Structure formats: C-alpha cells, structure tokens
C-alpha cells in the first residue's frame, strides 16, 4: 500500500510539473496551472452539435475514437492519504491507540508520543472529528471499568487539548471491558486491551 501511494504521489507530481511548465510559458509565473484540456472531439454537452437546418439530422455515427478520462479522481493530501469513507478510514486508521498500565489512566512517555502524533494528524486534517474510546482489560469489575475507561479517554483528550486541538473536535466514551481487542486471558492480551482508541467520526 505504501509503495503504491508513493507511485501515485510521484505520478501526480510529474503531471503537475509538466502542466506547470506549460503554464509558465504562457502566463504569469505565480498562477496555478489550468486544468488539463479535454481532446477537442468531445464537447462538454456530450454529443455533437447540430447544424441549424430544417431537414432531420442523420443519426450520429458511433464515435471512432474512445475518450479516456485521465483526470485524477481523488485529490491526494500531502502525506498521500486519499479521502475515503469513514469506515475505510477507521479500518486502516491513521491513528494509533495509546496504551495504559494496569488500573491507571496516566499517559506515560510512549503514550504521550502517540497522542502527539495523533494530534499532528488532526491538525493536518482540520475537519476531522474523533471519538476517543476508553477500554480496560478483563481484570477489573465490569462496573468500575466503565469509570476507568472514561478516565483514560479523558486523559487523552486533556492532552490533545493541551497540544492545541479544539475540545469540540474530540468526544470521549467508555466501553469498560465490554469490547476487548484481544480476547485472550494473558498479559499480552490484557496489555492490548488497556487502551484509548481513536475513531474518526466526521471528516
């Protein structure tokens, strides 16, 4: 996936460079390049223009040439992430979860680094809204873990806001121990489940 993205980026850059080169010869150097022109054999209305006449026109012949639309479909952001549906985005999430120690809602250094990177991502995509889900491993009670999960989510939100993210872009919710990411019953599984998980809810 990453190689493909790089290829796409390189291809677009080359296309833009060519267009920019053409534009520079004809117009002032700082202007943005005009969109690529379509071949002249196809009008924007989609069919050939009829000559003014009183005789019924002959049915149009099938076009001899096929038009291949090479106009790029999806604008590409600076780091190569296409704009996709929310489900796609969350499935292949650009956000990493922050993990916690047992019974704790404190952000350690690695967790702060993760949240900081997530904050940068949110700044680059200024329309994104997220919900931070707080999760716990199975070892607390079902009820207390609802509060602990929310405290984890709130700790992450507080740190995000301190890094400059507006609070109305960030919601928090707790799932306690109801939705473990790893259903195992060992420390490796438990460590995966003690987390604050980012979900993009608007973009």
């Amino acid at each position, binding site marked *: 996936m990453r190689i493909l993205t790089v290829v796409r980026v390189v291809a677009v850059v080359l296309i833009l460079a060519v267009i920019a080169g053409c534009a520079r010869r004809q117009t002032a150097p700082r202007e943005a390049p005009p969109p690529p022109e379509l071949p002249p054999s196809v009008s924007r209305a989609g069919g050939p223009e009829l000559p003014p006449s009183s005789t019924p026109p002959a049915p149009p012949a099938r076009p001899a040439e096929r038009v291949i639309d090479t106009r790029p479909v999806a604008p590409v952001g600076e780091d190569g992430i296409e704009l996709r549906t929310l*489900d796609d985005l*969350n*499935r292949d999430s650009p956000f990493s979860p922050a993990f916690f120690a047992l019974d704790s809602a404190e952000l350690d250094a690695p967790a702060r680094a993760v949240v900081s990177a997530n904050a940068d991502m949110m700044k680059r995509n200024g329309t994104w809204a997220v*919900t931070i889900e707080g999760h716990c491993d199975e*070892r607390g*009670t*079902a*009820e*207390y873990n*609802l*509060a*602990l999960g*929310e*405290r984890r989510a*709130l700790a992450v939100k507080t740190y995000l806001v301190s890094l400059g993210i507006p609070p109305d872009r960030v*919601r*928090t*919710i*707790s*799932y306690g121990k*109801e*939705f473990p*990411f790893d259903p195992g019953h060992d420390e490796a599984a438990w460590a995966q489940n003690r987390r604050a998980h980012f*979900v993009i*809810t608007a973009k």
Partner: protein
Amino acid sequence: MRRGHTPATRSSAAAWRTALTTVAGCLALAVLHGPPVPVLGLGAGAAGQQAQQPDEIVVEITADGGRQPRYAVPDFVALSPDAATDGSTLGQVLWDDLEFEREFDMIPRDTYASIPVARSAAQVPFSAWRELGADALVFGTVQRAGDVLRVDLWLFDVRSGRSVFTQGYDGPATNPRRLAHTIADAIHDQQRGLRGVARTKLAFISDRNREALVGTVEKREVKEVYIADYDGANQHRITVTRTLNLNPSWAPDGLALAYTSYSASSADIVISRIYEGLLQRVTRGAGNNYLPAYSPDGTRIAFMSTRDGNGEIYVINVDGTGLRRLTTHPADDVSPTWSPSGAQIAFASDRTGRPQIYIMNADGTGVERLTLNESEADRPTWSPAPYNEMAFTARTGSWYDIKKIDMATRQVTQITFSQGSNESPAFSPTGRHLAFTSTRTGSKQIFLIGRDGRGLKQVTRQGNNQTPSWSSH
C-alpha cells in the same frame, strides 16, 4: 415512540410488542375461581377432603423431629386428552419451584412410578404415598376450555388424608408454567407465610444474537437487554437497536427497565416500557451516563455520570427532570444502589485507592465507608427486610467472588468460592436469593444462589450473559 428504526427492525419491534403485550394480558387474566366442590369418600382413615373456607384456621403440614416436611408433586391429572402435556408441565415446574425455595424436602419424581395414579381427589392412595415417606402431597387436575387452562388443586396432609388447602385456577393455555408458579407462591404463602419468587423475572445483557454493531468497523457484536422468568424459561429480547446496551434495572412495578444505551456519540440512560413498546430518554446530550438504579418508589433513577470529568453519582427523575449531583469527590464513584426504603444509597468508590463500598443518605450527605477488610469491592446490592444485608463483588485472589455484609453487625460472609469469577450480584425481592454473573462454565452466565451460598442454579446457557437485575413482580 422509538426513533431511528429501519422498517425491518420496526416490524420486529412490533412483533416483540405484540408478544409482550400478550404476555402482559395473560398475567392479567390469571383468574382465581372458587374452590372446587368438596368430594366425599376418601383414602384410609381420614375425615374427607374439605373445601377451604375463607376464615378457616390454616393447618400447617409438619414432620416429626423438626425436620422439613417431605413433599410429593406428581403430574397433574389431565381431565381431557388435550391437557396431557400441561399435566406434566404443571407437575414438574411446581416441583422445581418448591425445590428452589428449600422450605420443603422434595421427594424425587422418579420415585413415584410405583404409586397408583389417582384420577380424582377422591382416589388418592394415601397409604402408598405414606409408604414413600411423603408428609404432604400436591394433587391437581387440569383441563382445557378453549384457550383457558383450568386447574383444581388440593394440598393434602398425607397422614390424615385431609386437604389443608384447595383452590381453583384459570390461566391462559399458552402459559401453563405461569399457573404452576402461581400455585407455588400460594403454597409458600399458606404453609410458610413466605412471599415466593416464582412469578418474578430477571433482566440481563446477552450477546447471543451475534449481530454486528451498527456504524463501526471493529468486529464487535451487539449486547442486548433480555428478560426471562426467574427460572430461566421464556427468555425474550427487549432491545432491537443493534447497539451496545448495559446494566438493566427493573422498575419496582416490573413494567419497565432502565438501562444504558450507547449511540454514536454518547452513552445515555433510557427507560423501556417493555409491555407497551415505548422508549423514553432519561439523560440527553450531557456527557456519558451509566449504571442506572431505579428508586424503590419508582420515581427516580440513581446513576453514574462522567459529565464533570470523573465518575460521580447523580439522581434524576424518570422523566429526565430534577437532576441532582450527590457525590463531589475527584475519585471515581460508581455503581449506585438504593436501600429498600429509599432513604439511603450505596455505591463503590476508589477514593482510598481501590474501589470499596460506601453508603450515604439519598441527598448525598453522611458518606460512610462500609467495607473495611476487602482488597476491592464493587456493585453493592441491598437486600430487603428482614435480612438487611449488602451483597457485593469482592476481589478474592486473581478474580472475584460474591460476599455479603450484615448491615447491623458488619460481619462479612463469603457466598461463592473461586469457581470462575463471580460478579454483579442482585438480590431477589425477598432477600433469600442472589442472581449474579459467573464464568465458571467457561463463558459468562447468569446463576442464582441462596443467601446461605447453597442451592446454585444456572439460568442462562446461550452466548454470554451478564449483570442481572431481579424484578419485584
């Protein structure tokens, strides 16, 4: 009025409403008709069956030496062929109900084979039952009249051959179990002065449908609210919203359930009037709200909200007005539950490090720590009079067990002993039993147990089931 349903879920919601309305109608229909005509002629040595007069002295069937009286409950006699299976259903369910309360010594039903089957109350072979060791015999007849089940019942003192209790019952033919439960409650009331639980219900959370959660890409399955008869029969799904639902709490009239329902943006308390198909929102648009508990008078809900930055206990009227914050400590205060009178609220708090049980007045004053010797305690449930105990989830080693504390002496008794992890206890309305979540079978299931730690009964088997609430009716 429910919102946000697709036509498919609306039709299934309508089907549930119809089913539950029918059940409710059946409850209302259980009519007691007059006592049966007394039959003269009898088994050996007795003065004959007698119809129960309203002001007659109650004759209690006892046994020698202070032991519990031994009860036999054979199949009810079908007076018409179409009631044959009803006869065996009534006998088995009634036997199970009496066995559950452990007030009587129940004679196993597979030992009745040698006893001649009586076709009427006049033909009961009392000497044969005496030989089997029975002190009391429940004899019933059943027939169908249209869609009505008609039962005549006698409770016999086997030694004397006398009927000490007799009653006729009409009920819907679609629910013979309900008739048996009614009879069990009547026998416990008449013979022991005890209020029974045979007609009460459980509410709990289940993931058995394995439906994917709406609106998320994670592989998550919905958890829905279910109800069931106290013995696990007639399990019905209540919620159809394909979201996460948690922690149901019965209204005291048994006609509504409060629970937490998750939407895309928040967790909120809702009330479902389950026999009317009505859903009302209690909290709305103010942070996340969890763990509802109905007050004993049914007018308020205590719950935990994190709207002010950490878990705090709040109380709100069931219509969503009158919000009052009760706790103000920066630690997490969770799991509120009411005292039987409604004057106090118990909750769990980690204000001293690990969660412990606290009690306070219903206005938030007078906070007092209750558990002093537990490493961790959560989810208190307050038993009614005459027991005045608080059961809770207690950490025992790696996992949890149910314990209870006597509110007067503050003595702690352990109820479960490290078979799996045992959490989220809920007292029955009589205080004689607890329902709880246990992982002892490898999945989460609802179990019942006596307040003395005996009489374990598994209630659910399908999927994972957790956090029971026990209705008062």
